[in-house]
């Protein structure tokens, strides 16, 4: 239920409008979109685990809930950098596939958003991680669909003023309109 809810109903990009930067930036080609999706799934899952631990063991016990945004940014950014370096060293093939997308995720609001939502919900560790994972899959799903459309639009001939990002935004809007159909599909507290 969490999965369906996060992937379809409350899709991060299409109904929460989080992570729009890579959604528009890395959706020109299907291959790169797939790579990016993989990277986001990986980072979001790991990041939510780390931030959950941070929140529950360090911040919450000391009544420091109000600084968690700051702390999360710091932790997520360094985590991504660390993963980048470590992956380059130990898993070169995976790095070749994902690595170039990692720096782009450093400050991705979707990652932070997932951590924030988890924090606000006060959900348990596994629930948090699974929610983040699902949200990332939803993000990847939207990204892949969107890149498919954009590849098709490469062959289109829109009016001059709409070329490029403007057309992508209109398309994104229509896609979001279509995803409205899922509303109510799963009744979730999120």
């Amino acid at each position, binding site marked *: 239920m969490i999965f369906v809810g996060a992937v379809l109903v409350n899709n991060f990009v299409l109904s929460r409008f989080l992570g729009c930067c890579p959604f528009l930036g890395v959706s020109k080609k299907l291959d790169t979109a797939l790579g990016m999706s993989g990277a986001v799934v990986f980072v979001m899952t790991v990041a939510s685990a780390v931030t959950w631990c941070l929140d529950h063991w360090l911040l919450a016990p000391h009544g420091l809930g109000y600084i968690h945004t700051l702390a999360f940014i710091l932790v997520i950014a360094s985590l991504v950098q660390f993963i980048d370096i470590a992956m380059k060293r130990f898993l070169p093939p995976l790095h070749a596939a994902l690595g170039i997308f990692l720096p782009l995720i450093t400050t991705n609001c979707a990652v932070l958003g997932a951590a924030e939502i988890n924090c606000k919900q006060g959900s348990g560790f596994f629930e948090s991680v699974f929610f983040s994972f699902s949200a990332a899959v939803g993000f990847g799903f939207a990204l892949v669909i969107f890149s498919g459309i954009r590849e098709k639009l*490469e*062959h*289109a*001939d829109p009016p001059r003023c709409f070329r490029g990002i403007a057309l992508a935004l209109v398309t994104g809007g229509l896609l979001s309109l279509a995803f409205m159909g899922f509303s109510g599909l799963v009744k979730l507290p999120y």
Partner: protein
Amino acid sequence: MKVIKSQFEFKGGVHPDYNKELARDQAIENLPVPEELAISMSQHLGAPAKCIVKAGDWVERGQVIGEKAGFISVLVRASASGRVKAVEKRLGPAGGKADCVILDTAAERPADVPAPSAGPVLAPLDWRTASKEDLLKRVEEAGICGMGGAGFPTAVKLNPPPAKRCEYLILNGAECEPYLTADYRVMLERAPRIRLGVEIMRKMLGGPAVRIAIEANKPEAILAMEKAFADIEGNVQIVVLPVLYPQGSEKHQIYATVKRIVPEPPALPIDVGCVVENVGTAAAIADAVELGEPLLSRVTTVSGDAVANPKNIQAPSGTKYADLVKFCGGEKVPPAKVISGGTMMGFAVSTLEIGTTKTTSGLLLLSRKKVFQYSSHPCINCGRCLRACPMNLNPALISKAVDANDIKAAEDAHVMDCIECGACSFGCPAYRTITQSCRRAKNSIRARIAAEKAKAAAAQAKQ
């Protein structure tokens, strides 16, 4: 000998208006040698022949004027006696330039050149006693290439590498192109010659089974062939093909007759044990072997609604289109389009000053009302091209990719498998230039491959 119906229909294909009734019932007529011939050195697939005569030379009928210039090449003989007016580069119907011998056949024979004796150009051979090598040599020196349209050197095709055995010799009498009736007339009028040609080829190929493929809309041709082949020995069958364009395509004919599928290029029909030859080629081989007559002329259908009297004409190679039209009583109405070949795969030409070649199966003059205009309207994704494509490609995708100058995407969509049959453009409701897009993509891919090869060769030379 059996007549069977083809059981294997390939996917795709279209049904254009055949318009064969215009010239179907016109018996083959011989064209008197015109006053001027334009004999191209590039009448076949492969390297153009090397011209060995120069302006002012006197040449005899049958004399070699162009030498074979490579493995995939064919020699060229003069189709009439006369004086060489000029040797110059001229445009062929396909748009490429090639050396062309301009022959003045009305010129007076010089006093010091005696008239040749009235014998055959080459010594006749007895095909039963002649060796395979002799026969191959004869096919080569008679300058024979495939007469269906592509013009592949016949001697090369009939001499497969020893590792590959020919199991089926398929005789192509489909003639699926609209308007054209040249092969049909040859089958009606020269059935015994075709049979002889088949027997010679069979000997050269080591006795394969024979399949004669004819479309169902030519019942008389089927009858004529049945009669001619009635008492032939061995595994010979006439296969009646369903009427479907492009039934004459080599790959599709092989599938329709013996249900074998030729793999992607560079595989050839011989890789699945098949050799496909046109009926006209078979007759030409019979003439070359038995009569010693090289391939100097061929039957060309002159048709279309702008021609006064459509005809099937036996014309010497190099006859200018204008002479053919004149022989047919001229133009009925001003033509809007002139096509060398059929309407599905032929080439539009800009002038009637081009000479015929060994592969000119037809010359069509179409009036304005028979000509449609291509447009640059966007594709509406209707999928008709996809369903029409006999190669099972996605022409819509290729055409859109080429429009966007994305040749890589076209290559990924297997554009190199395209046989340029035109079925996609034929049914396109947006009148898009799909076939031309495929051609464009193929040309740029070939150019790129050639450039890469040249680069690699240069790099190797450096080392």
